[in-house]
């Protein structure tokens, strides 16, 4: 808020600091708190005199609002405010890229669950009950729910500019010419259902009115972009909006868009009291965007010796009611459309479409999950048509450093795609069950539900490789800011790291500690609560924070170190040898101690703030989908071994093996965590996770019927981590968060096809897709 802010509190209280720097498997700072229940999530925030907010949501997927009657709700005892669109102080709409989403619907609702009115009351139950008394007069309209239909010329327009959020036309080489000469052609149409991020901590936060504006504590992915949108909607200058990162219970992209931020702030400003909003699980399904459902049409042509000649296709992404990140998802889908393969001739059209389905936007993998499912299915089909081993076909066409992507961009970082596959294939397979021996139910499809004792069970093995860009692409100015302060505390040097980077569970705080410890040779490092009093860190998204904010922390540490050395020289005279900071002291090459850091900063702390930008600016794609649109890429390959009960359509994944190039593992333990968690999310999409929507109405907004994998569904993971330094990045690191989620789904599907012989062109796979059913 002010120019020289006071330092915020440490984000986690820590006792004995870990000893380890970059490259060590340091246990996460928040691990103990989280497993012991002591961690403060955004839903645990409280303030004196706080009111509770509740949101009135549309029961219709599409309807005109003829009127809103708040009188009864307002008269409900204990209610302090009831607000509608008319009460939004500033801009009526917000959005990450396009401000098309109403803070509160005014004349029309475009999806099931769209916010229409707000209530603040003394008690959460009061607020909920009063919300039920807000009478909204809806005139239901036919929902437009089929993206193909929404794309049609005669479709009703859901937004003034029509129903296309984004169209990318991608063209390279001569597809028609290549098609005329291809020896083998395979075609397929694939579908991806709507996956939810299913983070465990529902949307929540606390808004506190201040003298000049509002202070919002919230679980989010990007404090500064929340502030930008908040300020606009609240008609406040950005300085009057202070956003503080609260404990995040998972994000996976689902907290990039605003949810309760403006709502709680409006209620707080209106009532002049702190306001908490905490969604329940059901509301959370309506409170954030989901992964884009996709329909993907592919045609692959190859020469008889198994070289890809061309790929052409068409991809429709259902963006739902509002734009969110649809355009960026479309960009990533474009860049990953043919997979990590060399394809000289490519033609694609990709559309992200407005419909009356729930809004879709960012989710881990971000467009690359949908394409990978399709292109890897096509590679298996092609291998079969060619009579070539599917891994060999992939290896033969794999991109490598120097290869050109369909967007024209040359891959200049490590791209060990063939090696990933070779290493994966060389890994041992899990043992086959001994014939005739009784088996533990938990190892069988259906698990403890006791559906088979081995009957109908077939084993299948499948491979897939996937990739995604790392960092923000398409010309976005990707940067981060870090403030590093070294002071003396009880005779010891203390490093404080202050950034606005949101820790969403990925382990960024521990990474920043490791970097500062390593750069400054000082053991005691405290990472401070992220807030908007320091410069933007960008979004915790796109597998970018370890690199970009890590880079900013490193750069700020370098500035601090330079100042420490300067002070040491000033005090002790110039040294003949190079100086370094080690073990809390400035030392010479010879090991001679010049001065303890604590003495150099006593009473005069060093405080440096730096911005970091990676050494490449990306560009938007041109009208033919050409351009150096991505910073770099991350690659991972997966092998799935599955047991399928072909009579009941139930599946047990026996093992996932994976090889991933991570550049440099800053924290190998955290890398393994990302890999295993990402695979679990990929397994969920393959086998069970789907927000079921019919006529725009969400049918399963609960963890009773939106299933995510349990410990009995998630198999052991065999992991091999490669470390080929990424030349553009600090320490040679690369982003690791998203690649595990991308090809794991495709590998499971490949294994299921191998086991069943069924085409399985849609995820999640349903039992009906696997079993051969008699006509009823």
């Amino acid at each position: 808020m002010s120019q020289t802010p006071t330092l915020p509190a440490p984000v986690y209280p820590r006792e004995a600091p870990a000893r380890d720097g970059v490259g060590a498997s340091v246990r996460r700072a928040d691990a103990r708190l989280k497993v012991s229940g002591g961690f403060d999530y955004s839903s645990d925030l409280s303030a004196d005199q706080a009111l509770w907010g509740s949101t009135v949501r549309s029961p219709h997927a599409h309807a005109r609002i003829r009127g809103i009657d708040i009188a009864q709700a307002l008269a409900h005892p204990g209610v302090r405010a009831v607000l509608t669109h008319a009460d939004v102080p500033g801009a009526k709409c917000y959005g990450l890229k396009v401000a098309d989403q109403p803070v509160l619907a005014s004349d029309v609702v475009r999806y099931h669950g769209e916010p229409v009115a707000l209530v603040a009351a003394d008690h959460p139950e009061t607020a909920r009950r009063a919300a039920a008394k807000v009478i909204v007069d809806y005139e239901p309209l036919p929902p437009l729910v089929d993206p193909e239909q929404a794309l049609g010329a005669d479709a009703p327009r859901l937004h003034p500019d029509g129903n296309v959020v984004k169209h990318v036309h991608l063209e390279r080489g001569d597809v028609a010419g290549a098609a005329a000469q291809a020896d083998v052609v395979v075609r397929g149409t694939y579908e991806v259902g709507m996956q939810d991020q299913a983070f465990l901590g529902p949307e929540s936060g606390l808004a506190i009115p201040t003298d000049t504006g509002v202070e919002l504590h919230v679980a989010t992915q990007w404090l500064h972009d929340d502030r930008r949108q908040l300020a606009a909607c609240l008609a406040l200058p950005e300085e009057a909006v202070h956003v503080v990162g609260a404990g995040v219970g998972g994000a996976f992209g689902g907290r990039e868009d605003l949810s309760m931020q403006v709502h709680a702030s409006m209620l707080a400003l209106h009532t002049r009291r702190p306001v908490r909003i905490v969604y329940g699980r059901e509301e959370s399904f309506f409170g954030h965007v989901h992964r884009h459902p996709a329909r993907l049409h592919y045609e692959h042509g190859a020469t008889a010796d198994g070289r890809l000649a061309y790929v052409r296709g068409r991809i429709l992404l259902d963006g739902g009611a509002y734009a969110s990140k649809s355009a960026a998802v479309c960009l990533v889908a474009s860049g990953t459309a043919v997979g990590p393969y060399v394809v000289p001739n490519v033609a694609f059209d990709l559309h992200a479409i407005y419909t009356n389905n729930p809004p879709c936007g960012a989710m881990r993998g971000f467009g690359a999950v949908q394409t990978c499912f399709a292109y890897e299915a096509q590679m298996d089909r092609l291998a079969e048509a060619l009579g070539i081993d599917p891994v060999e076909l992939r290896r033969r066409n794999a991109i490598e450093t120097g290869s050109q992507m369909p967007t024209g961009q040359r891959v200049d970082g490590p791209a060990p795609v063939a090696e990933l596959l070779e290493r994966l294939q060389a890994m041992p397979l899990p043992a086959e069950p001994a014939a005739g021996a009784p088996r533990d139910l938990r190892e069988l499809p259906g698990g403890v539900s006791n559906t088979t004792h081995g009957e109908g069970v077939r084993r299948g093995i499948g491979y897939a490789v996937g990739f995604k860009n790392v960092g923000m692409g398409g010309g976005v100015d990707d940067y981060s800011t870090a403030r590093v302060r070294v002071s003396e505390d009880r005779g010891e040097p203390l490093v404080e790291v202050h950034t606005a980077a949101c820790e969403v569970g990925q382990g960024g705080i521990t990474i920043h500690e490791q970097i500062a410890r390593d750069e400054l040779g000082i053991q005691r490092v405290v990472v401070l609560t992220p807030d908007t009093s320091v410069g933007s860190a960008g979004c915790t998204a796109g597998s970018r924070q370890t690199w970009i904010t890590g880079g900013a922390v490193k750069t700020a540490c370098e500035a601090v170190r330079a100042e420490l050395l300067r002070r040491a020289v000033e005090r002790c005279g110039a040294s003949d040898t190079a100086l370094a900071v080690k073990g809390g002291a400035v030392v010479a090459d010879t090991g001679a101690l010049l001065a303890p850091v604590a003495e150099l900063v006593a009473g005069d702390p060093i405080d440096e703030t730096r911005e970091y930008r990676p050494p490449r600016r990306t560009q938007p794609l041109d009208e033919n989908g050409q351009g150096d649109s991505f910073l770099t890429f991350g690659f991972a390959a997966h092998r799935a071994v599955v047991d399928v009960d072909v009579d009941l359509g139930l599946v047990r994944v026996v093992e996932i093996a994976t090889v991933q190039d991570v550049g440099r593992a800053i924290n190998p333990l955290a890398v393994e965590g990302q890999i295993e968690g990402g695979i679990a999310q990929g397994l969920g999409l393959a086998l069970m996770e789907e927000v079921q929507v019919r006529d725009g109405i969400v049918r399963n907004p609960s963890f009773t019927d939106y299933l995510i994998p349990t410990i009995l569904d998630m198999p052991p993971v065999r992991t091999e981590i490669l470390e080929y330094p990424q030349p553009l990045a600090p320490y040679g690191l690369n982003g690791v968060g998203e690649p595990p989620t991308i090809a794991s789904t495709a590998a499971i599907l490949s294994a299921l096809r191998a086991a069943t012989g069924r085409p399985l062109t849609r995820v999640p796979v349903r039992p009906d897709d696997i079993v051969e059913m008699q006509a009823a």
Partner: protein
Amino acid sequence: MQVLSPATWREALEAKAAHPDAGAIQGGTDVMVELNFDRHHSATLIDLGRVTELCEWERDNGRVRLGAGVPYARIVAELREPLPGLALAARTVGSPQIRNRGSVGGNLGAASPAGDAHPPLLAGGAVVEAQSAARGVRLIDVADFYLGPKRNALEPDELIAAVLMPVARGPQQFSKIGTRNAMVIAACSFAVAFDQTARTVGTGIGSAGPTPLRAAEAEAFLAAALDERGAWEGGRRLDAGTLERFGELVSAAARPIDDVRATAAFRRHALGVMAQRTAAWALDLSLEG
């Protein structure tokens, strides 16, 4: 909302008589969810948590009297021998936390067709012991207890005291379909119980109709086939055709719908497969034979 917390069974029955509209709550695994979603509309709730006798079971005269509040975790641990079908089903209920709280009385009170306890209760010939302050004990055949989705045969002043379940006199099996390998609500489920003394077959179908169902025709068919072949003690082969026919008759007895958990067609199909498999396991038959 008013919450009554009787200390004894007698007090509980009196509370129910005084508040016939009251709902009952035991482990809360179902009622609390209903409350959270505002789908529970009783103005009064009778908390049975202090009524310790509901959490006891006893065995005499060839049957188990299972208190309505005995949690599933204890059924798994303590009743596997006398009530194998119910113990198998209990193992598939929710998570360890849910099994520590949930009970057969809760399943019966809620009368959801998806309740895991229903198929083995039907297959095993259970009797529900309802009780009221005014009229005392009333025994209800479990097959007559389910009236419709979330509707049961209790009178407004009655509470469920216990379930009377014959000790198994032959093999029992249970199988349940869900698209997750644990902690899943049944897309459909099936129980079978063989009474080798009376030479009868019992069945129960879950989550494939407005109420839990028996497959009476399938029961009679399989019993007759076992009689004919002298196969009641297992070890003898039933031909694949007989088991297939049993599966078909079980499928035919279902009245499934399409919903978020499965299609009707899949439910019918899966019931047929489960019926064949569970019968084969129970009789130690080889399906492939």
